[in-house]
């Protein structure tokens, strides 16, 4: 589904500094696979999502989605960001339909689907409410509906539950898994929470700090459907330990180096 080959991205900040965001990324994501990307802040995770979406061009290497080289934005994606970024003047229903309008599709043929998605995400009866009347978690559910309404093959998620409190976050993760099991899609999910990365994924891609490189790709061999109970599973702990050491080991090495 997604094929990244030796992808490198360097960009210039407004102040004129060069930032080497990601380096030498080679990765294959299979159709309907749930891949999570975990790493410390500033390891170019978000940049990688934008590269896959065609929102920014790669400096080197090629990105293919469904065997086609990505040369610019393409509408077969759904986005979920850290903040719901709903339009405050639109009702819940109209916020879901936003994608359809922006894509220039016939609204009428998507209304039923919008209602169906709203009830799938537990928002039935909230159609005519405004975003300000909903909690953060509910707003993010609306954003999920907005990302799914045009039935994209690929979902790109940039720390979508990062702004929620711990309990809502867990609930939303399970909710997302339930939706995904109901209608499979390829999901590329960025997070800095290691347990979240393991709980959701078929494979976890572990990244190192700037420039972001792939330290390890971990197959998560845990049964589905998953629950938070899994966190007490020995395998879960082992995965968690492996990821932690990948992320932190190089840093401590460097710290020792600077101390010496």
């Amino acid at each position, binding site marked *: 589904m997604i094929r990244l080959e030796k992808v490198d991205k360097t960009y210039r900040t407004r102040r004129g500094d060069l930032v080497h965001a990601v380096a030498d990324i080679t990765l294959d994501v299979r159709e309907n696979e749930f891949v999570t990307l975990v790493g410390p802040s500033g390891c170019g995770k978000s940049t990688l999502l934008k590269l896959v979406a065609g929102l920014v061009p790669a400096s080197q290497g090629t990105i293919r989605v469904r065997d086609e080289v990505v040369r610019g934005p393409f*509408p077969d994606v759904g*986005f979920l960001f850290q*903040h719901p970024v709903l339009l405050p*003047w639109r009702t819940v229903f109209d916020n879901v339909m936003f994608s359809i309008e*922006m894509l220039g599709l016939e609204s009428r043929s998507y209304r039923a689907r919008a209602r169906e998605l709203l009830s799938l995400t537990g928002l039935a009866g909230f159609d005519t409410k*405004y975003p*300000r009347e909903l909690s953060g978690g509910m707003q993010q559910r609306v954003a999920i509906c907005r990302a799914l309404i045009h039935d994209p093959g690929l979902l790109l998620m940039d720390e979508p539950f990062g702004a929620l409190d711990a309990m809502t976050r867990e609930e939303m993760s399970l909710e997302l898994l339930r939706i995904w099991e109901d209608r499979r899609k390829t999901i590329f999910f960025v997070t800095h929470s290691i347990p979240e990365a393991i709980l959701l994924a078929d494979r976890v891609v572990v990244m190192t700090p700037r420039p972001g490189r792939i330290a390890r790709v971990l197959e998560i061999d845990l049964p589905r459907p998953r629950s938070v109970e899994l966190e007490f599973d020995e395998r879960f702990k082992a995965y968690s330990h492996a990821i932690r050491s990948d992320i932190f080991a190089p840093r401590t090495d460097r710290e020792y180096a600077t101390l010496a």
Partner: protein
Amino acid sequence: MPRSLSRFARDYLLPTGTLVAVLVLWEVAYRVFKIPRFIVPAPSAIIAETWEWRFRLVEHTWVTLYETLAGFGLSIAVGVPLAVLIVYSPVLRNALYPLIVVTQSVPKVAIAPVLLLVLGHGEASKLVVAFLVAFFPIVVDTATGLAATPEELLDLSRSYRTSQLKTFVKVRFPMALPFFFSGLKVAITLALIGAVVGEFVGSDKGLGYIILSATSYWKADLAFGAIFLLSLMAIILFALVALVERIVCPWYAAEQQQ
């Protein structure tokens, strides 16, 4: 009911009561200390004089209102497109923004006589002074609002390959509306000040002219009447802009209340 009643008392009765108390104190002080009428007239004298001059005052009020609204309208017509250009084109931003700031650093009172020289003593010169003071907050606030659209929404639009125009109409402009209105609220008050300043510099019409000529004839009560009408106009115009804001972006008012 008692709660909303106490809120009504707090929001309306209390300030109104204070105002009435001040007026009564004023009247009493005037009588007790025998303040000369040409320095500070009593409220009763102001009311009487204003009533006496009511027809002429209404005429002059219309003139000032027209100058204010025309200048305000012009500042919207020029300010909003300018804000759009500044936000969408980095080249224009670098070219125009410093100039706009420079025009703001020139005291408008200082250029009003020059404007009169160019545009004559008619309403046009007042309108232009009103425009010059009012357009700055509109440009700055609208531009800030347009630039405040969350990056994520712009990414979303780009990934859907939505046209710039559609993104502007459906996302950026509505997103900027609360900013635009806060600019309008400042601008409408400034426009009125600009119109009066223009009248001060040279005119034979408008409330500014009335204040100037009344004081030169030692008719302080009439001058106070005109000042009262100007304040009333400012309050009503401001309230009207606030009302339009509530109608156009009700979501914003609701968010503010939370």
